[in-house]
């Protein structure tokens, strides 16, 4: 999933739609994110490429909205409602996810198992 900034990215992505859950005064998605261009990518336990400053799903509340929607720990978030998440700061990502007026977020995520699945299903898939 490594990519060069400025270069097009090829990734197998899954679309995940999460309906936010009202919890007290807050709407929650039920997962937590790590990473961002202002964070140390070396600390990210999920990335294959330790220079990847993307946003990753670090934790998921069991039974929470994200869990229900099929989000998995370690997923890399590529887009949120159409907004690019591969070159954003941690806080920008958090804000994009927690916009007050949106009660649904649509994510494009990628994960290793997706890539593998695609690779296997197409034996001669050009990539790798």
């Amino acid at each position, binding site marked *: 999933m490594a990519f060069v900034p400025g270069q097009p990215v090829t990734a197998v992505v899954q679309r995940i739609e999460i309906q936010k859950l009202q919890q007290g005064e807050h709407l929650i998605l039920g997962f937590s*994110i790590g990473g961002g261009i202002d964070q140390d990518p070396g600390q990210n336990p999920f990335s294959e490429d330790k220079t990847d400053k993307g946003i990753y799903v670090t934790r998921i509340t069991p039974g929470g909205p994200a869990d229900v929607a099929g989000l998995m720990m370690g997923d890399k978030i590529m887009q949120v409602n159409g907004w690019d998440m591969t070159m954003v700061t941690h806080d920008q990502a958090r804000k994009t996810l927690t916009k007050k007026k949106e009660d649904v977020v649509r994510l494009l995520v990628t994960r290793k198992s997706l890539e593998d699945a695609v690779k296997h299903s197409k034996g001669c898939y050009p990539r790798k």
Partner: protein
Amino acid sequence: MPAEVKQEQSPSNATSLAMMQEPQEVVEETVTIEEDPGTPTSHVSVVTSDDGTTRRTETKVTKMVKTVTTRTVRQVPLGPDGLPLPEGSSPLGSYTDSIDRRYMKNGGERFITPQATSTLTRSYNNSYNDSYGETPESQYVRHYGLHDGYADLTDNYGSLSRGVNFRPPRYPYMPNSYRPENSYTLPIRKDDYGHVAQPQVPMGTSTVDLNRSQPERFQPEPYGLEDDRRSLGPEEEEPYELEPDYSTANRRTLQGANRGRTHREPLRDGPRVRGYPDDPIEAELIDERHPYIHGMYSAPLAQPERGSMASLDRMGGRRSPSIDSIRKDPRWRDPDLPEVIAMLGHPIDPVKSNAAAYLQHLCYENDKIKKDVRQLKGIPVLVGLLDHPKSEVHRKACGALRNISYGKDNDNKVAIKNCDGIPALVRLLRKTNDMEVRELITGTLWNLSSYEPLKMVIINHGLQTMTNEVIIPHSGWEHEPNEDSKPRDAEWTTVFKNTSGCLRNVSSDGAEARRRLRECEGLVDALLHALQSAVGKKDMDNKSVENCVCIMRNLSYHVHKEVPGAEKFQDPSALQAPGSTGPQRKKKDDAGCFGGKKAKEEWFNQGRKNGESDKNYDTLDLPKRTEPSKGFELLYQPEVVRLYLSLLTESQNYNTLEAAAGALQNLSAGQWTWSNYIRATVRKEKGLPILVELLRSDSDKVVRAVAIALRNLSIDRRNKDLIGSYAMRDLVSNLPSGQQRPAKNLEEDTVVAILNTIHEIVTDSSENARSLIQAQAIEKLVAINRTSQSARETKAASHVLQTVWSYKELRNALTKDGWNKSHFQPTVTATPKATKNGKPGYDDTTLPLMEKNQDGYSTIDQRDKDCKYKTGDGSVDLTEREPLKNDTNRKHYIRSNRPAVSLVDACDVKPQPVDSWV
């Protein structure tokens, strides 16, 4: 507010002013950026809105000031000798480490025992006595041993056991070398550590601190190491830091001296005091602050000269085991904070200064200790020491105050103010000639100036002194230039940087502050001289220049309303129309929300009028002056245009660029004679291409300031034509296209500023609207109008589109390109909130991207409703637009407007910096 009118109105166009609920987004003038003193960077921007109210926002980022007492010391030993250090950790280890701790650990049991006897409650006197008797000896002895060992057996220098081994030989010599100077604690310390790490506390400390307090613009970096890094640069520049010879040459003598001293100087407790500070900080660094850093910085030794740089945390990883064991040793006890504060009042001066130095060290990056010092009433004591005649004492006190004043805890700053610390600092500034002390004073003032309520206090007590003592002398400006001497250049000293940073901060404190600064004798002259000198020397990227430009920018804000006698210069054309153009325009716009015929006519007339008067200005010579202008008049003389343009051309510093563009923006706002001159001068000095070029800047805020400046400049009709012809492509290229932001990823404010500038340019000029179309802007505008998640962007884009559509002569071309009227209609629908109550609801309407579709685009026109509300006139001219209603849309709007709740999980208290629940 005739002057403002132009700018304010710009966001809206002729057709839609009434609808626009937030005309003020178009910032006409921005007052500046402030940067915090050593520290924080703050931006203050003042926006004048329609109703004349002022809105101010400030964001502050604080940078920590570190005290480096111990650190500098450590490095020294390494550097001079140039010895390779066998153990990475040992050399860097502070003297404390190498001496006290090592010994404590290895040989401490045998030799140091006496110390264990000291109890917590003992007074410092006692402790000195105790320690002097035995502890110091053993310490020094060992410590000498260390040195010798290191001198003789270079390779082993770092080893722990060496000191002990050598100890016996040293011992006998001690008495001989006693020197009188040693009787003072401070000097002694220097000596003591001199061999070990000489530049010692006094020097190293202050130097380091200064650096910290530097105004460097804070750049958020991920993990907090930045502080060290930042301080590096400056430190390296510091002359006194690098004195390698000093240590090596004198080593022998110093050692001797130390030995002697140990015996005779009961009061000196240098080593002890110094040793302690390390513990808390190290512990903090190691344990809490940068846990992850250890691995990354395993090679701290590479740059021993960095002193403060080589912060403890780096070596923490390696050293921690020994530290831990040392810290557990019950025989050593740190003086607690009340004790240290009590020492500030000790009758013996060296004790005071040592205590202050220790406090400074303790406070470094430790907000808790700063707060404790405050609560233990330590601040008034420190402030009292500022008036102490001994320079060592007031210097150290000042150093401590600087660290205490740094940070986000404004209570500390207030505490300094409440015990009259500000006048005391200013008094000391007048009194002292010691550069280092001056740096500390100005650094402290800079820190204090970051807190809003203190700004006026600083102005009241310190403005003229800072100007006379620092700004004028360092700027090179001379009040009465000597004919023979050639003009002097500015000196970019730390003192100048600190002082200009302080003034930069206080200059943002509103109209009264601006007035005081403008009228402060010599200030504007000196700042301008300094900037001219910077331009002359092509040295425009440094912090001092940045500070100066920011002050100039702030002082230029609202000059057309605030300077004495401004009314004499009001634009004649503005005066002709009673009531001034402002209100008139607004009224007109209100009446014809949608660009009623009448309104349009007026606009055209006005345009024509502007055009004519403009022609006059072009031919009109600038007013002849009987005498050279001085003081605040210099702010808005057309000559400054060249200065700012030079900065805009040459500087690489984004903050400077932004401030210079902001200054032009401020000066070109308003309707008075001088702003007319400024607008024309920018054109004549070929400034427009320079500004347009900067639209390509990578810096968001530079683009924004330039865009707004262009907008104000286009009040001048000729400028408008030129900008329309030459700047359109660069403006448009900054707009996001559809959902994909351009590479620059500009902030909402910037996008809105650009849209408003475009709006201003196409308003009243179908030629410019044509350029806009040719620049492929319509596609982007429509995309923003439809899909932007920002209501403000959507609105601004929609205004531009409406204006473009209002030019009937362009519609053919537009239709040919596949556009139709619906593309030029606003997308915003009525939302429950919005209809209830104008502004907030309207503003908040952000549509989720995925819910927008073609249908959604044409909706009930919320603006119609707004119009009615605003004007109380239901029969607004709606003929040109047919509001489309669409129930489905409506539904989704309502839905999207549902509860405005924070989506942040309640239990999300930012668990870690890198991980947030959503």
